[in-house]
């Protein structure tokens, strides 16, 4: 099979051997979870339980607010401890509902929509996906029901399932592809039905032969679905890059996938959609990768949403003595945690534990203008100049060089031989530009 790709990007090391090939480990029902009220870009949910209330697993404990909002469902049965202050993985503070588990998993299910996907009402699918609390499980956390209800003048002809998993170290999606291919295909068909899309594509790195074989087999009765191999390159899983690679369409500047008639969903999102629609199971569990040289038992764990990083690390055998850095997410875009009392949300893909030696970055040197950041940037920006403008707070310059087009993938910092914190400065620069724009009365 010919591998598809996009222009530029970087061949990053994989680091996936630690967890590859092992079976998914189901963890025991945790004794405590914290469910964040806000995940993704929607409004925070509004709690409808109070301290000491008994809750069942799957029960709604906070109601969705606004068109992009999602309900929060209890992932375990037990007693509400209260509404607590939390810090999410990016260090932003918010509220969450803490539940002390009683070990029960008497799941409150929804009514399945039926069996015949081709007869489902698109609006009923969107409603179900929303009430099941489903969002983009690849990391961004964008509400899935918003993706499948585009503006009325937009026509989506292609649904892509993103199996690229381009972050080094991560294997959770790979494991789901290897164990639940039929459900991925069913989820894709439901999403295609909801959008009226004629074509479905599953994009998988070409070297993951097992995943490609299993999903191709699962999709063999559906000629409208194709499985495409992808070149092993970072950031292949970035939405815009993946669409370019698979369809040759380029999302316009400042645009979204629907502007080119495409909707992209993660592997685990597809499974969650299938479970919500066909089985009536809300999104309360997911598979995460726990890995790195600093963890004793690396593996892919099926967890309950809201488990704290601290408890999850204990499940994975605990940290080694030389562990020094804990990253939520992959090594390219993940955030280093300040504290381990951080809940794993629906969009959190992994926990990476790095050793003391790996944790400190190499010393910075002067930029030699080698232009590697320019040559590798997947959106063709000029990262070094943007980073310099950011340091000097040159707002006009940052706007001229389209700082807001940066997808924050970190490729520039990764390739920089001078070890400059390029993406870090660009992200800071975006904040400076945003602040200046809002000062000028919101004009752009």
């Amino acid at each position, binding site marked *: 099979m010919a591998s598809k790709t996009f222009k530029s990007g970087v061949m990053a090391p994989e680091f996936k051997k630690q967890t590859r090939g092992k079976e998914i480990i189901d963890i025991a029902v945790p004794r405590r979870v914290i469910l964040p009220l806000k995940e993704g870009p929607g409004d925070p949910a509004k709690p409808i339980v109070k301290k000491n209330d008994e809750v069942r697993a799957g029960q709604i404990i906070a109601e969705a607010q606004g068109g992009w909002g999602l309900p929060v469902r209890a992932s375990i049965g037990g007693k509400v401890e209260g509404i607590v202050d939390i810090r999410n993985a990016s260090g932003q503070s918010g509220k969450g509902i803490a539940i002390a588990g009683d070990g029960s998993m008497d799941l409150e299910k929804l009514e399945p929509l039926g069996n015949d996907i081709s007869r489902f009402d698109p609006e009923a699918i969107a409603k179900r996906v929303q009430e099941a609390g489903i969002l983009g499980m690849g990391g961004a956390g964008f509400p899935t029901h918003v993706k499948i209800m585009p503006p009325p003048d937009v026509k989506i002809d292609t649904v892509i399932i993103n199996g690229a998993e381009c972050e080094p170290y991560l294997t959770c999606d790979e494991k789901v592809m290897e164990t639940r291919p039929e459900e991925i295909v069913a989820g894709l068909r439901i999403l295609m039905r909801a959008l009226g899309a004629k074509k479905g594509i599953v994009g998988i790195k070409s070297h993951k032969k097992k995943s490609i074989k299993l999903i191709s087999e699962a999709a063999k009765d559906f000629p409208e679905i194709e499985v495409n191999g992808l070149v092993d390159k970072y950031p292949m899983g970035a939405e815009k890059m993946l669409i370019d690679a698979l369809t040759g369409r380029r999302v*316009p500047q400042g645009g979204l996938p629907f502007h080119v008639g495409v909707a992209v969903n993660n592997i685990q999102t597809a499974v969650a959609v299938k479970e919500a629609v066909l089985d009536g199971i809300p999104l309360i569990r997911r598979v995460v990768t726990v890995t790195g040289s600093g963890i004793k038992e690396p593996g892919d764990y099926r967890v309950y949403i809201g488990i704290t990083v601290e408890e999850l690390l204990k499940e994975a055998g605990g940290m080694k*003595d030389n562990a020094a850095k804990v990253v939520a997410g992959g090594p390219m875009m993940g955030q*280093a*945690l300040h504290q381990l009392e951080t809940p794993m949300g629906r969009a959190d893909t992994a926990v990476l534990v790095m050793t003391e030696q790996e944790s400190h970055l190499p010393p910075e040197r002067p930029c*030699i203008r080698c232009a590697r950041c320019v040559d590798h940037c997947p959106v063709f920006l*000029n990262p070094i100049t943007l980073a310099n403008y950011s340091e000097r707070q040159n707002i006009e310059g940052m706007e001229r060089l389209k700082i807001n087009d940066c997808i924050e993938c970190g490729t520039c910092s990764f390739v920089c031989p001078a070890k400059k914190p390029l993406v870090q400065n660009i992200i800071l620069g975006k904040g400076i530009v945003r602040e200046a724009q809002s000062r000028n009365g919101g004009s752009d």
Partner: protein
Amino acid sequence: MATDKLVVTHAPHIRDRDSVPGIMGGVLIALVPALIAATIVFGWYSLVLVAVCAAAAVVTEWVWMALRQKEAKAIVQDYSAALTGVLLAFTLPPTTPIWMAILGSVVAITIGKQIFGGLGFNIFNPALVGRAFLTASFPMAMTDWVLDGTSTATPLGGAAATNLELFLGTIGGSLGETSALALLLGGAYLLYKRLIDWRLPLGYLGAVVVLALLVGEDPIFHLLAGGLMLGAFYMLTDPVTSPLSRKGRWIYAVVAGIIVFMVRVWGDAPGGVLYSILIMNMAVPLLDRFLPDRIFGEVKAK
């Protein structure tokens, strides 16, 4: 471990192995074939000149970094000063006196690099600044082409030479520029290791070939003669003094090629390569400013 001691840094948490010293060291390795060729053609004094220039450049860099109260040791370890010294030596006639070579290196590092703020901030290729200074100050010594103990003209200066002699480098000329074979070997290494951008030598050499064909000169002779190969693979490609955008890099290389050809065919001074690169170095900030690459998904301006 104690969780209050978590290391917190910004993503990405892994970095590529390549480093600034690695890149500079790689270019030095790529210069080894040309150094061997120079030693065979011009004798052991070539090695002495190269070593003297490199040492003088490193010492000058170290003194300046100390005066500027920078961490001198770490900076000098990046091999960039040594590279400047070696490249300067490659542009010198094989009879250059030691003191002149040292003076050239001091000027290259001081005027070519440190007064702009050191590595990464210089506008001109430092080695070529050193060479231009020596050419202006000692024009006789800088055109004293000796081969096998007798003074001779260079092929560009009118001496007869076959293209094979030019290719192997058994002719009069500057120390490191005569053997196209050795320079191409090193150039292939640079391209293979992705230490230089292929657009630069291709645009530069390509422009010379096209112009030679247009005016009816032998393109092979122009490719092999003089310092064109050395300039194409080692001087024009200096990352610090070449453009950041791909579009800018094409213009930079092609215009430099046009300049070198014009100097050779219609000018009467030597040093076309030297001045073509120094002139285009000046254009780099403009190219960067006005020829940015098109951004992903950018809508074509109407």
